[in-house]
């Protein structure tokens, strides 16, 4: 039956994630952004919750409790309300493993899922979708894969690949014969070069790298899903839903900070919130954050039901992109000059928020 409220289990996980963020991230987020480092400890604490292991089937060493895009969305919102980079880093192995779980051949599942289950803290894999060019579109990839006997030869350039430097494997999105596929490349494949850490507008706590593929040859078995290929649509649906969840988290954080500031900050002898121009921005933030969350949950509900979520995930994602631009800007504007100073987190939300409309495939729901 239709329901707009969390179950006890969902509430519990939401609160756990919120508590973790409150403890390990909230106060450190500014420092993380300035230094470009996420404390290992914080990531480990999240991994200890075992959300990913829980989703992995028992036969591959997981708890076999099934995967819940809704739960993933709830968690991502909470983590992103702390720091977007942290949200991505903490949930990263899923970015590589979930596609394997969704579409991998039995052999791929046996290998990669079991690898992870055996060493959940070890370096795992990451996903490379974005390409550094104008008019980039995940449905119009310039990176190509060509079949050559028992191999695929990959060529192209990727960017914004999270933690590429330390990943053991990288899942590469590439065009193949007019369709799109995913290809698993070992980090030390000689045809793959990981470039120096990128400098970006936002997402500064997270190390992202460009990748170059030069006649990069991989065994045909490392095409995700084997010869049948993978469900690329569904992968994008899941990443779009995740981006929408992250956007919701960032906007919520900006909204809450601005709301509290507006109540406490006085000008002309009254709280600035007593002015409609400020109050109405707060009101709009309030309902648009809710709308973003509902759009995310709508897409996640479709995914959870096993339905095709193309429409819902796309709409959630473009809505989140538009609103993240608008609302995090409001957050800065409510604070005025103080919003322009990096010590106030609305500044970080503003920069990170701009990534929601631009970045692809940085998390998965």
């Amino acid at each position: 039956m239709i329901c707009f409220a969390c179950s006890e289990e969902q509430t519990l996980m939401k609160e756990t994630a919120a508590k973790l963020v409150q403890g390990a991230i909230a106060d450190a987020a500014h420092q993380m952004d300035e230094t470009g480092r996420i404390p290992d400890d914080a990531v480990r604490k999240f991994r200890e919750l075992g959300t990913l292991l829980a989703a992995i089937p028992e036969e591959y060493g997981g708890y076999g409790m099934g995967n819940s895009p809704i739960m993933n969305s709830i968690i991502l919102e909470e983590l992103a309300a702390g720091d977007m980079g942290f949200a991505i880093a903490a949930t990263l192995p899923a970015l590589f493993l979930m596609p394997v779980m969704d579409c991998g051949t039995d052999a791929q599942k046996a290998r990669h899922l079991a690898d992870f289950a055996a060493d959940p803290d070890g370096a795992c894999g990451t996903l490379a979708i974005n390409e550094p060019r104008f008019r980039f579109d995940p449905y119009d990839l310039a990176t190509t894969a060509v079949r050559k006997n028992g191999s695929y030869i990959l060529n192209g350039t990727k960017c914004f690949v999270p933690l590429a430097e330390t990943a053991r494997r990288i899942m590469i999105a590439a065009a193949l014969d007019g369709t799109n596929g995913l290809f698993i490349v070992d980090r030390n494949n000689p045809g793959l070069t990981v470039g120096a850490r990128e400098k970006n507008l936002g997402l500064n706590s997270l190390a992202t790298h460009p990748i170059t593929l030069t006649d990069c040859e991989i065994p045909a078995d490392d095409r995700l899903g084997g010869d049948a290929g993978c469900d690329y649509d569904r992968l994008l649906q899941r990443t779009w839903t995740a981006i929408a969840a992250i956007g919701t988290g960032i906007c919520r954080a900006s909204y809450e900070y601005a709301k509290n500031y507006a109540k406490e900050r006085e000008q002309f002898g009254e709280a600035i919130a007593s002015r409609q121009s400020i109050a109405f921005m707060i009101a709009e933030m309030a309902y648009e954050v809710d709308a973003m969350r509902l759009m995310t949950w709508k897409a996640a509900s479709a995914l959870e039901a096993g339905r095709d979520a193309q429409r819902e995930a796309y709409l959630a994602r473009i809505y989140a992109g538009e609103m993240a631009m608008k609302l995090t800007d409001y957050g800065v504007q409510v604070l005025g000059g103080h919003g322009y100073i990096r010590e106030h987190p609305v500044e970080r939300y503003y920069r990170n928020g701009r990534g929601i409309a631009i970045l692809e495939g940085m998390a998965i729901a």
Partner: protein
Amino acid sequence: MINLETPDYLASMRSSMNNLAAGVLRPIARKYDAAEHEYPAELDMFRGMQILGRPKKKKADAPKPDGGNGKPKKGINLSTVATIEEMCWGDAGLLLSIPNAGLGNAAIAAVATDEQLERFGGKWAAMAITEPGSGSDSGSITTTARRDGGEWVLNGEKIFVTCADRCDIVVVWATVDRSAGKSGIKSFIVEKGTPGFKLEHLEHKLGIRASDTGTFVLDECRIPFDNILGSAEVKKDTEGFKGVMKTFDNTRPMVASMATGIARASLDFTREKLDESGATIDYKRNLNNVGSLEKDFYLMEAHLEAMRLLVWRAAWMADTEQFNNVEASMAKAKAGRQGTLITQKCCELLGPLGFSKEHLAEKWMRDSKIMDIFEGTGQIQHLIIARNVLEMSGKDLK
């Protein structure tokens, strides 16, 4: 547990309501837009239908609103807003003209005594709140009700009364004690034909022209004492007034759903033209790589989805007995404004087809605009939301 999948019962209800709207309302939409104020006789077929989930007869006969078990009837608010969306996809002005489904009927159903239900339950009841000097400020009502023996004597002027011409009775808001402020405000049932009760004129409006909106003048209008809805007592606190206002927690999502239905009609028509012109709407390509029409379409559809979800949440909260004052205003604020933006953007995208009365797009734009105005303008909704989330009083945040 979060689950936003549309339940089957709701999907099939939406589908049949859409058929009804497409078959009955849509074909006569233009006719009654042109014939402003003329009663749409085709709507008589709805007279016996409980289309908006409101009991239409006296309480004893009516389906229990509480399902008999002390809990509200399952999903009645959600079903209602879903129905409204479909009907307004057909035509909003006509939905507002459905017999015996006036705002006054809702008020009567909510608080009337059995005796009052007996007398008025089968009648078409309009609601008269706004005055020339009040607008969105329901607390500043100046129409007076003076007690004189076994009668009330009403004096004042009421504007923007929906179904003013067609209704049988009008629920009139008046103050029995101006010094008591909001607590002094009560509602009274005035029957058409009562001496001193005059329908002054009907308004000529931008849209929803099928709906008759009028002005009443009450000049020493005498009605029986029993025609008061609720208690005649003036309480010190404003609980009584809050009770009256609470009606709006239910009606705001309804209006928001009307906006959603109209906007969807506009979008559906635009989609049709896009399809005909060979555009691909596949929810896949990056917005930077599609045509300008497609991008606008996608973004509008996203906003439409947001409108509907906010409406459904507010309705679901009412169905699950949660206080939804803020969420009702959120739905109304978002849908009222966005409905205007979507319907007018569609006219722009449709080009010549959006300016000609050969098509309904221009009408949807006119109809939609009222949804950001009546039952509290967008500005009032933002105030309600802001006061709530900021925890500020009406005095601190005016």
